[in-house]
Every structure is written in C-alpha cells, then in structure tokens.
C-alpha cells in the first residue's frame, strides 16, 4: 500500500508543479489543487499508514491511526481551500482589469502605466 | 438465514450495479448511456444498502436506518441529475438533434431547454442585458 500512496503523491506533485509553470492562471489553479492534494496526502502519511483503525476512541482499542497528522491536514485543507477561492477571484479581477488572463506579469523593470 | 439474505442482497446489488456500469460502456449513444446510473442507483446501491442494514441490525445487533437515508437521498437526486444531464445534452446537440425531436404537442411550444417559459419571454427580460 505504501508504494501506491507514494506513487499517487509523486504523480500529483509532478503534475502540480508542471501545471504551475504554465502561462495562464487557470491551469496554475488546477496545478495548485493537485499540489494541495499531494501535500495533504504527504502530511497525512507522515503519521504512517494504518488501515481499518480510525482514531476514534473506543474502550480497549490499542491500534489506531496517528490523529495528529490528520488534524494538521484538516487545517491545511481548509486553508488551501480559502486560498484557492481567493486566487480564482483574483484571477477574474486581474483578467478584467488587465484585459487578459495571464500568469505572467510585466518584468519589474518595465514602467507600469501610472495609476494610483 | 440472515447470512443468506445478506449475501443475496449483496449479489443482487453487485449484479445490477455492474450491469449499469457495463451499459455505460457498451451502449453506443449518449442518451442510451444515460440509463446506466439509474440502474446502478436503484437496485445496485439499493441492494447493498439493504444488505448493510440487515447485516448491522441482524448480525451485529446495531439496528440502523442510516442506509435508508442514503437510499432516499439517491432516489431523490438521481432523477434530477439525469434530467439535468439530458437537458445539457439536448442543449449541446441542439443543432443536430432538434429536428428529429418530437414537439411537446401544443403549437408554438417547445421544450424548456430551447424556449424560455412564457412569463419571461413575455416581458422580454430573458437573456443578457
């Protein structure tokens, strides 16, 4: 099972990084989504794999999954959701103010149009 | 006894579930394939959920009607999904299929996907701006 998880995490990471390199925002958003799956799984497996033993306390049970990474992943999921939401909205706003949807910005040495 | 019932329900569920998915692959037209999920939903999941109910109630003594809720939810939502999918397909295929599609009957009335409802078309607020 470990290998399966590792392969999944690796594939998600690779695809995520690749998509983040593209020149428009939307694929980058998808890439970040994939990356965040990878992250969540990665943090999760830091607590190792335990099958069939959810961390819900029952009298006499001694085998259970490490709950801490799960709690961390929950926090991370929520945060990355908030970030994704913000990013896509930012993409829309930028698209309608800049006139195009691009992940690139002008180089810093280019002088921008004067604005407030 | 319970074992047999549970096993039977499971097998029935498995069979119809598989048939549904198989139909999804096998049937040649999109609209035909649209029939697949209802099969998987009704007897497929239904069978399994019943099996689960019986299993937890009879075998483990933890009667639970949770599964019934899932079944109800699926029965409630699956038609809507199918309806929306069909509409989506009708909309996408509007150029090619509209001619072959039967009309609702009354003259001047078309299917909802192609025609705004009377109130809206009447006061002309439809569409943008």
């Amino acid at each position, binding site marked *: 099972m470990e290998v399966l998880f590792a392969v999944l995490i690796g594939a998600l990471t690779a695809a995520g990084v690749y998509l983040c390199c593209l020149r428009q925002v939307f694929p980058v958003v998808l890439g970040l989504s994939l990356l965040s799956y990878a992250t969540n799984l990665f943090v999760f497996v830091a607590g190792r794999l335990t099958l069939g033993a959810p961390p819900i306390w029952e009298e006499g049970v001694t085998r259970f999954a490490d709950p801490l990474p799960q709690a961390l992943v929950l926090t991370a999921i929520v945060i990355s959701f908030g970030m994704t939401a913000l990013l896509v909205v930012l993409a829309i706003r930028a698209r309608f103010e800049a006139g195009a949807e691009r992940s690139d910005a002008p180089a810093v040495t280019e002088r921008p149009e004067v604005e407030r | 006894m319970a074992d047999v019932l549970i096993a039977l329900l499971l097998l029935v569920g498995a069979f119809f579930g598989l048939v549904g998915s198989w139909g999804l692959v096998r049937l040649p037209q999109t609209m035909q394939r649209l029939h697949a999920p209802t099969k998987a939903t009704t007897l497929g999941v239904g069978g399994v959920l019943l099996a689960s109910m019986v299993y937890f109630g009879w075998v483990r003594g933890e009667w639970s009607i949770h599964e019934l809720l899932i079944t109800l939810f699926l029965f409630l939502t699956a038609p809507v999904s199918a*309806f929306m999918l069909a509409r989506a397909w009708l909309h996408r295929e509007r150029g090619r299929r509209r001619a072959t599609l039967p009309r609702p009957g009354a003259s001047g009335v078309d299917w909802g996907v192609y025609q705004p409802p009377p109130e809206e078309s009447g006061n002309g607020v439809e569409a943008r701006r």
Partner: protein
Amino acid sequence: MSVRARLRRWLPHPALSLLLTLTWVALQNEFAAAQWLMGAILGVAIPQLLRPFWPDPPPVRSWRAVLAYAAVVLWDIAKANVQVAGWVLLRRPETLRSTWLVVPLKLRIPEAITLLAGTITMTPGTVSCDLAADGSALLVHCLHTDDAAATVAEIKTRYEARLVRIFGEGEA
C-alpha cells in the same frame, strides 16, 4: 387567532415535521427520550426557519394512495431492472430501438410533476429529459420500446393517474 391557524403557524408542514423528527432519530440510531425531544425541536424549528423556501407545499389528499404508489413504483423498478439488464447484457446494442416519447401532462402541481419525472427516471428503461416550456408535456427517452404509444399510455395510467389521486389534481 384560531387554534388551527396557530398550529399552522408553528407547524407549517406537519408531515414534514414528523419526517424530520424521524430522520433525526434515525440518524442518531438511538430511540431515547432525549433524541425524540431533540428531533421534535428540530422538526419544529427547521420548517419554521425554512418556511420561505417551500412556501406552499401541496397537501396530500390520500396517504393510502401514496403507499399504493410506492408499492407500484418499487415493483416496477425491480421488474424493469431485470428487463433492462437483459437488454444491456444480451442484445446487440444496435438492435435497441431507442425513441423519444412525449408524455402530455395533466398534472400541474410542480411537486407532482417532479414526482412523475422522478418515477419515470428511476424505473430503468426510461429517463425523463425535459419539460415543455409551458409545462404541458414531459420529454422521455426510452431505451427500448416496440410501441411508443403504449409506453406513454402506461406511464399515464400507472403513474400519472395515481399522482392525480394523491394530490387531488385533475380539476386544474
């Protein structure tokens, strides 16, 4: 304010309230008094809160008709499942005669129309696909039928007629 009006105000949908209470208890899987109480509270509170979202649910005229309808539909589902499984597994797909059916509607109550459309979809072999712009007919896709008119007639008699009985429609 009359008792009935007061009751109506607190329990806009008594059946719904009951169902919610049952749902709660079912969810808890625990039949203690506390759960019934909690269920009852929710049964009152949630419809109150959501009153504007379901402004005037049609009253059910006959609960017996509902049961009968349910039985018919469940039986039809089982029957149709077997039938359709046979088509899917045994027939060559090219030989399926799929057609569009137009089911003219007598029903006018949205809930009833929805129920009919849902029933049609849930019985394998037919899927309700669209509603006429004025709500006068239902578009149904049939996976395989030899006699379209017969299928339409069956839908109307087996389901629509029963729904008319449940919701007391027909005068509209």
